[in-house]
């Protein structure tokens, strides 16, 4: 017994780690779940944050913005500065993140302008976007937009900034550096992989003990460990294998912060207005820039994003360069799905597959787009046989339905499970 003490100890240690990790993941999962369910509130809190700054700005009306502008001529040498020490860059970074008090308060740029990859929609341009935009502009331009912005929204938010010439130059220097670094990825939380490794080691140790070493006379502990880890390993492998190559919940950042919640939800634009080919074609179609212009010819300012996002659309049209959206819903090439079939012939509403798009600021994939998901729907969905086509060729079903011999016809009843309906 004593001889094997270290091994036994390791095993208990590992068990402890395993269960604590398991608990931690379960807890964090449930926390995350509550978070993701509340995307909308999260966004509003952000807006509220901005509002507070606004209020804050109002309080400090006495701040001499004009003065700083009169400094231009004397500070012109400062603005032309191009060489910065690492010390300067660090100060620039501290200024950007609001760690330096200027007067009686600090301004954290990162509050509104993300420096990390975000999985929710932040209306403001992120740090990378502005950094890139100002990469080729001078510090004077940055100063102008910081202290005397043109847009009404920014005017409110940026009111009362107390930034000296040197501060702005340093912020600009840090932003230049940031343009090269890019947005930070959020650190991954405890992954299932780690759990899997620990569980596998435990499983191995216990099975060795059961089969070869027999350290314990009472093998019930080993069996208990084997059962728990075994279930866990099987479960995690099964979950991952099923999810392999599927992208449920995929919500990539788009080149333009387009919100379906604003367009389809608040403004009640019909889905078919922009995705007008859904009724007549296989593809629903990503609307062309010209379609955006139907409204945005007049609407040039958003209530939240200001002019920046809409300006991107206009720029794309001016440059004749299309916006390269990141595709979310994508079926493999060997599946021939037709929107026309489902929207026009089948009269399926958009949300049946795409979820409640009207509430999505950032669009994400709702179903996993697996074949099982397709077939499940085909099995349950009732077909309306009142179309002349069905009346002609499916008259037997139509008649028995009318006579009340059958209560409904499902999609599978009219060949909805034939492989060749989708694969050819």
């Amino acid at each position: 017994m004593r001889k094997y003490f270290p091994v036994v100890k390791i095993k208990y240690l590992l068990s402890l780690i395993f269960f604590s990790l398991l608990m931690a993941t379960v807890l964090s999962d449930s926390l995350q779940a509550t978070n993701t369910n509340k995307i909308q509130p999260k966004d509003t809190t952000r807006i509220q944050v901005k509002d507070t700054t606004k209020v804050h700005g109002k309080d400090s009306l006495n701040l001499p913005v004009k003065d700083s502008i009169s400094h231009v001529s004397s500070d012109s040498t400062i603005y032309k500065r191009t060489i910065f020490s690492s010390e300067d860059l660090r100060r620039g970074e501290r200024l950007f993140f609001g760690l330096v008090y200027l007067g009686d308060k600090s301004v954290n740029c990162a509050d509104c302008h993300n420096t990390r990859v975000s999985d929710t929609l932040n209306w403001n341009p992120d740090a990378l976007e502005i950094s890139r935009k100002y990469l080729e502009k001078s510090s004077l331009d940055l100063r102008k937009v910081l202290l005397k912005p043109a847009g009404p929204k920014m005017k409110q938010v940026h009111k009362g900034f107390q930034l000296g010439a040197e501060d702005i130059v340093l912020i600009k220097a840090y932003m230049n550096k940031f343009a090269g670094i890019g947005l930070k990825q959020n650190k991954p939380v405890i992954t299932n992989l780690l759990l899997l490794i620990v569980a596998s080691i435990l499983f191995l140790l216990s099975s060795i003990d059961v089969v070869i070493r027999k350290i314990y006379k009472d093998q019930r502990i080993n069996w208990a460990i084997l059962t728990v880890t075994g279930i866990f390993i099987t479960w995690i492998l099964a979950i991952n294998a099923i999810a392999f190559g599927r992208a449920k919940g995929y919500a990539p950042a788009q080149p333009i912060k387009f919100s379906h919640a604003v367009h389809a939800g608040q403004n009640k634009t019909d889905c078919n207005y922009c995705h007008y080919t859904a009724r007549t074609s296989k593809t629903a179609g990503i609307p062309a820039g010209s379609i955006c212009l139907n409204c945005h010819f007049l609407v040039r300012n958003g209530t939240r994003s200001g002019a920046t996002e809409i300006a991107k659309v206009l720029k794309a049209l001016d440059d004749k360069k299309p916006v390269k959206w990141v595709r979310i819903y994508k079926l493999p090439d060997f599946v021939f799905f037709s929107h026309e079939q489902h929207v026009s012939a089948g009269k399926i509403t958009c949300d049946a597959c795409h979820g409640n798009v009207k509430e999505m600021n950032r669009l994400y994939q709702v179903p996993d787009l697996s074949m099982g998901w397709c077939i499940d729907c085909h099995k349950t969905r009732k077909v309306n046989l009142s179309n002349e086509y069905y009346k002609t060729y499916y008259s037997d079903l139509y008649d028995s339905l009318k006579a009340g011999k059958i209560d409904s016809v499902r999609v599978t009843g009219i060949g909805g499970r034939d492989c060749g309906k989708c694969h050819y």
Partner: protein
Amino acid sequence: MKKYWKDIESKKSKEQERRMEKTPEENPLLELFKSNTIDLPASRRDFLKLCGFGLAATAFSSCQSKISKAVPYVIAPPEITPGEAVFYASSYINGNDYCSIIVKTRDGRPIKIEGNPDSGITQGRTSARVQASVLDLYDGGRFHGPMKTGISAGWESIDTEIISKLQKIVEDKGTIVLLTPTVFSPSTKSVIAGFLQKFKGSEWIQYDAISYSAMLEANKTSFGRQVIPDYRFDKADLIVSIGADFLGTWLSPVEYTKQFSSGRDPEHNMNRLIQIESNLSLTGSNADNRIQIKPSQEPAILLNIYKEILKSVENRHIDVPASPVDITEITKKLLSMPGKSIVISGSNVKQVQLIVNDINRLLENIGKTIQFDSYLRTHAALDSNMDMLIGKMKKGAVNALLVYNVNPAYTWYNRNAFTEGLKKVGLTVSLSGTPDETNSLVQYICPDHHYLESWNDAEAKKEHFSLMQPVINQIFDTRQMADTMLKWSGSTMSYYDFIKDYWGGNMMKRQSEYTDPVTFFDRTLQKGIFEPAVAPKVSVEKPGKSASLPFDSILKKTGNNSGKNIIEIVFYETVALGEGRQANNPWLQELPDPVTKICWDNYASVSPAFAKDYNLNDGDFLKLGEVEAPVHIQPGQAYGTIGIALGYGRLKCGKVGDKVGTDVWTMLSSESGNIVYTTKLDQIVKTGRTYIFAQTQTHHSMEGRAFVREAGLTEFRNNPAAGNELHAYNLEHNKSLYKERKYPHHHWGMAIDLSKCTGCANCVIACQAENNVPVVGRVEVQRVHEMHWLRIDRYYTGEEDNPEVVFQPVLCQHCQNAPCENVCPVAATSHSSEGLNQMIYNRCFGTRYCNNNCPYKVRRFNWFNFSGAGTLAGNLRDKEGMTGNLRRMVLNPDVTIRAQGVIEKCSFCVQRIQAAKLKAKYENRALHENEIQTACSQSCPANAIVFGDMNDLKSELSRLINSGRRYNLLEELFTMPSVNYLTKIKNKIL
């Protein structure tokens, strides 16, 4: 029961065959391991490396899915809906070939050619060449822009240089010559006229590589009109053709096939075709009676027919040498139906055509089956003009030569004279769009658009106009020939405006429907064709009763054919390649010849008896004069003749077609101004070299089973099930253990009328274009890896040296008791509720059990990555460049691209079925009659393939299925196919 056999090999004794199969060298599997058949010499270590890499690659590639972008239009074009096809009416013109077409475009790129059903000429049907022409558009070997002495140059600098040079020539009173094929576009003619007017002293010469100049000259003499008449095979009950392959290549084969097959309806009217020829041509294969002759015997036979007819009709007597074959029956039949026959000859000798004309006159065919009201305008060139031009060029009397779309440096019999003459021409310009032997010798290249990028009009037959419109923006920096001519003529007008003006001025007055020229043009453009209702009557000068025919010269020719050792060579065009214009088209190169079933080659065909006498084997190289060609033993070839195809052995056409086959144009000769497509040889020499053909039909024998059933017309009239007695027997005796499945809603099916099918192979290419069927290349065809979903089996019956031929298109039979479905371990092939045999590529993992169990051998396996859809680079087999980005533009996005390792097969064009059903649902209606057409049935010029719903009792399909001629392939296996065949009925002279 007739005995059918497919080729010489299968007639050999079985023992011998089996012994051959056992020899290890013959095992094709072992070939895999030979280093010369695989590009990389592979060792065991390489194999293991590949295994490891493959595993790693699959593991890593599947870990992260690629981020894909969705890129919309900046400004949406109103005519394009992503995911939906748009169709445009247009015209196909390539040299002398013409077809009225509808082009299917997807997202702005043409992907498929379909026939225009409104056309009075081609009536919605196409040929293999027309179907394949869409691939020519995506040929990266086309000229990418204007060039000066082989170096790219800008259009502006080239224009200024050429215009100043042309003007200089005019000032110096020099000669400018424009050399084109027959131009039958009225607007282009008008543009050329403007050019000739602007540059005084310039000439326009038309030259056709395959010449009909003897016919034109003869018609001038006989009828006073130097035109090709409008042959009406649909009005003829008896067709006697002497060496004219009118179903394959002669003049206007699509139109003629449609006309001919309309008279092959055994239930109603049945014409009779008698073919007298040397090669076994497509027409000869479809003839009711076929007589083999040497080409030199042709005049004697014609003269004897003439003599008999003359005697009977005009009671005149002429002295002619005895006929080598018995023609009394033919003459009797011809005389029995005045005005209801056609006699034609493929000869390019004026005297022969004169006799043919007089025979037709005496038989009262002129004005009935041979009309001049809407004569054919696609062939109008005289060889003598070309002779004259070359003479002038050699004398240095030509100062500038503008060549457009002709290739005399390759197709002219005396090409050295042409190239020498070309050196003496001061300014040489080519206006052709694709590289060829001629424009590799010229100074300036001003490339033309592909026809799918061009505006044009056409008048293929008198008063049958059609328009051509661009369906894609130009891919390369090319400019249309007519635009170039307009520019050089000093006009600022674009050709498009020119056509509109021309039509406003000349065509408007021929109709009364529209009063506004813009509306008229737009509506015509939409329809594609404009055929004014009443064609003006064209009077034909009827020659007097005693036509003074130069018998003496004809007789001279017939004199010296008695020597048995003299071997005569007959040159012909193949159905696929013709004169070789589309030699760089992989689809056409891989299209098996309808009769020989050889692709990627031409060859010297000899008869089996001849091969025996001269000790020749299939594939032996022969030295014929100056060229060498491999022997192909062809049953039905006349003894003592060798048939060899023109249009091969090109050197400057591009990656695909260069050095494929043997170039034999130089063996042609000219006689009294017309090119002669035959020649004589004293001897042939074996070189000792041997060769293996890429042949698609040597692999399976018929084993005495009745794949093709046929009967004579009289038997059929007595008993509609004649020749099909087995069908009733099988119906009675077949029993299945399985419960019969019902298809109450749709049950898709097909009927193929073997009486109508001519084997022209249009369907093969139509299917290839529609279904993204890959090209595999010559080596893979040799290894039996061809991929065509639809093949046309050709069987011979009767004697080896004088066989009859039957064609049978074979595609997936969509069996209701499908043997393939039972054996698939992963259910990748299954039956749909609409009676289709479905093949699911993404489920297939390549056991090939289904292939093994399919009695029809219609399943194709992707042995290598032919399509570019595979992931491992080393497995790509694409010698022909079909997976390049440009060539891939032709792919149909509605059909999956199959990767390596999966089986594929005919799907009954399920994508079309789905689309048509959806359209009906969208429009809240039942399907229209014949709304769903598969690619093969849609464009079949013979109307032999009919597709439809077998549950629709009123459809044409149901009518055919209920006919006594209906049977299924291998019905004794009780697979219950959805594809039905109708017995072939022949109308032989007993």
